[in-house]
């Protein structure tokens, strides 16, 4: 394949990520502290209050997946005893450590100073950090976020999270960093977050247009990058979303669809889809091509909500700083129960006027893949739109069977087409 064509916002983001990796790998020169933490329930603003850098193992696994390194790392981890069924993000991370822990900038990752584990629905996170703790022997701070098993959070749950922030997380971070917590600093960062979040929501909302100027899955994973990772609360994230907004606005003005890696915009859109589940990263472009070659555009996805459901109205709130961090963690998509996920996906199919729902179920993700077939059937029933189910993996290249996936996608698209024709005939 030719070199992927990148839009200005992508290049901007690439630069931000590169700078963050440089900051992390130069911690010994600069004396800055580094934390490892996860995307869902990511407390970036809080870390910023202590001048701690944010390194995200999931993002490293994704980077290694897209750079075709994860396969080797996974085998490395398997050699050290991690079975085939273990989450491949974990194995890619462990395997990377086994092979010198080299960051994408070619320099070794320094050991983290603290592991900040916000537990938001994925139990593997706990096991993952147990492994990291054994490796790095550094302080581990766990924020236990109660699961929204009843479909909503209660005051009690919120108080419980706030109490942990006050009594465990903040004192812990103070100790690691030697910096005193300043709530006004947090308020300032949260105000920055909210600004960027407003623009992100505007961007994702444009999927409702026809043609859609965005792809909310393959493009969407870029759009969520800064806000889900080490940049939320920072000025550069605000600037990024302003730039992204302008870029999307320009496409709307020109009547264009999203840009594909081949540098052409997908204007001729035959199928509008809602997608549930993360993308496959090891064959990301090949996977995307299966969609745009058929004129399929993803208008909304749940994966772009795993690091915060801003589209449902949540904003980080400088007036209630700790409470809003608690609400943020509680409301992450991964922390929602199955009926709520059905409600959200149904709403997407309807509001974005999609032709159906596609589930990309992840082979090695036991916690998130459970129940997806039921989700699909329920969304189908409620919307009357057909669903389809494919299975791949996050970063294990062995579990992407291109011929099978393509076959199913093509069948699905033709099925939508056939149903449409059937509906026309009946009408």
């Amino acid at each position, binding site marked *: 394949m030719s070199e992927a064509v990148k839009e200005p916002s992508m290049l901007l983001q690439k630069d931000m990520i590169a700078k963050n990796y440089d900051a992390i790998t130069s911690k010994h020169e600069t004396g800055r502290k580094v934390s490892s933490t996860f995307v869902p329930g990511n407390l970036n603003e809080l870390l910023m209050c202590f001048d701690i850098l944010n390194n995200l193992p999931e993002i490293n696994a994704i980077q290694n997946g897209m750079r075709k390194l994860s396969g080797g790392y996974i085998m490395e981890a398997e050699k050290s005893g991690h079975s085939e069924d273990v989450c491949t993000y974990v194995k890619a991370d462990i395997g990377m450590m086994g092979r010198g822990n080299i960051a994408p900038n070619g320099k070794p990752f320094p050991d983290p100073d603290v592991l900040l584990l916000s537990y938001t629905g994925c139990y593997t996170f706990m096991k993952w950090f147990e492994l990291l703790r054994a490796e790095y022997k550094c302080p581990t701070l766990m924020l236990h976020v109660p699961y929204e098993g009843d479909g909503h959070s209660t005051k009690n749950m919120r108080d419980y999270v706030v109490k942990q922030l006050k009594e465990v997380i903040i004192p812990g971070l103070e100790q690691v960093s030697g910096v005193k917590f300043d709530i006004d600093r947090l308020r300032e960062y949260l105000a920055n977050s909210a600004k960027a979040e407003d623009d992100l929501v505007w961007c994702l909302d444009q999927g409702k247009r026809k043609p859609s100027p965005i792809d909310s899955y393959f493009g969407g994973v870029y759009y969520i990058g800064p806000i889900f990772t080490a940049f939320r609360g920072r000025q550069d994230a605000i600037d990024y979303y302003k730039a992204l907004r302008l870029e999307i606005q320009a496409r709307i003005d020109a009547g264009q669809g999203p840009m594909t890696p081949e540098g052409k915009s997908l204007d001729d859109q035959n199928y509008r889809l809602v997608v549930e589940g993360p993308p496959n990263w090891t064959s990301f472009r090949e996977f995307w091509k299966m969609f745009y070659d058929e004129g399929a555009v993803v208008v909304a996805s749940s994966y772009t909500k795993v690091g915060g459901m801003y589209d449902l109205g949540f904003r980080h709130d400088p007036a209630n700083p700790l409470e809003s961090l608690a609400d943020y963690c509680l409301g992450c998509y991964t922390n929602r129960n199955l009926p709520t996920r059905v409600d959200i996906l149904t709403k997407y199919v309807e509001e974005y006027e999609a032709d159906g729902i596609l589930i990309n179920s992840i082979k090695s993700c036991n916690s998130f893949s459970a129940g997806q077939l039921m989700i699909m059937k329920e969304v*189908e029933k409620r919307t009357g739109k057909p669903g389809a189910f494919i*299975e791949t993996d996050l970063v294990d290249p062995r579990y992407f069977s291109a011929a*099978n996936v393509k076959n*199913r996608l093509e*069948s699905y698209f033709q*099925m939508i087409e056939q149903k449409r024709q059937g509906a026309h005939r009946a009408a």
Partner: protein
Amino acid sequence: MRCFIGIDLGSTTTKAVVMDENQHVLGRGITNSRSNYDTAAAVSKQEALIDTRLTLFRRGLASVPEVAGRVDEIISELERHFRHVQFMEQLDDLEATCVSNIKGTRFSGLETAARDVLAEVFRRLKAHSASLFAPGARRKSDFFRDLAGSDFMQIGEAACREAGLAFELILNLYDKSIIEVENRPPAGDMEGKFVRALEKGSMTASSILKPVQDALAIPLEETYVVGTGYGRVRLPFPKEHIRSEILCHGLGAHMMYPETRTVLDIGGQDTKGIQVDPQGIVENFQMNDRCAAGCGRYLGYIADEMNMGLHELGPLAMKSNKQVRINSTCTVFAGAELRDRLALGEKREDILAGLHRAIILRAMSILSRAGGVKDQFTFTGGVAKNEAAVRELRKLIKENYGDVTININPESIYTGALGGATFAVRAVVH
């Protein structure tokens, strides 16, 4: 006349169906998929057109009072002669190819001997060929590769022994040449071959000749071709002529049994559970993913492991009265389990019965993921020809879904191609 053709390029076999504009099936053709999908598509299409000619002959003869009651016999004779003519033509090609492959150091000094032995082998093959196409003769396969291959082994070995030449030399020529022959596009002139077939037979009465010749004169125009199956992207068709096999199977099953709501297709490397609406439009489907265990190839592998023919598995399993439980859904592991059971003294038929159940259990799981089984239920694909698999399926459907009408068409292997041909008609006529 206008012909609408559906071609299903499967992993094991390639099937074609020819339809007229009223959606009546005129002919069906099948061939092994080889490593060359282009040729497989061309051969299966030609086979279906040959079958179409036979249908036209049948129609032509139907109105001839003199042959009333004998039409089947006449057609069958004509077909046997036609197949023989075709076989001889392919043998000539194979012989010429073998001779042209006598080259290289391994033949140095042996060229003449090899050529002589080949001449003798092919002389005997041709002499023997008549018996392959004699009335009532049972052929193990209709594919040239299989027919010529088994005879070549026997006759070739004998001829080499007599000539004092190493059989490996000749076998090597055959192996090399059969691939070339098989991958060549089929020879044309179907009509000419029918004329020669007519000449060979006893069908000289003008009451037969005239209607057959009239039917032969009808031009078969390839109005629209739709391709489906795993090899579909290899078809030299524009994109709109290519349909997913899920849709084709759904529609094909609907054409065979209009009341069909659920379709199970077990093919060479995938198992599909499909739900269709009253118009044959696919509503939902599930397929095996990442692993082809429990598909047709599973049986092929087991047949190899047991040193049996694929078609012998079902009948042997039917003899079982004590099913051995096979747990593994992995084809390779099932092979290990099979040897383990044999070593423990279990009977072959009982183990085979267990293996058939294992396949169907996997299919049941895919069906339930696809939304269960609704009345009527149609079972298609190569595995639907296996009586032991069918028996297990009936049992499990009844246990899980109660009384459901189960349709199995003897021509079910053509379901995908039939759906393709129907799409072809719809694309032009409707």
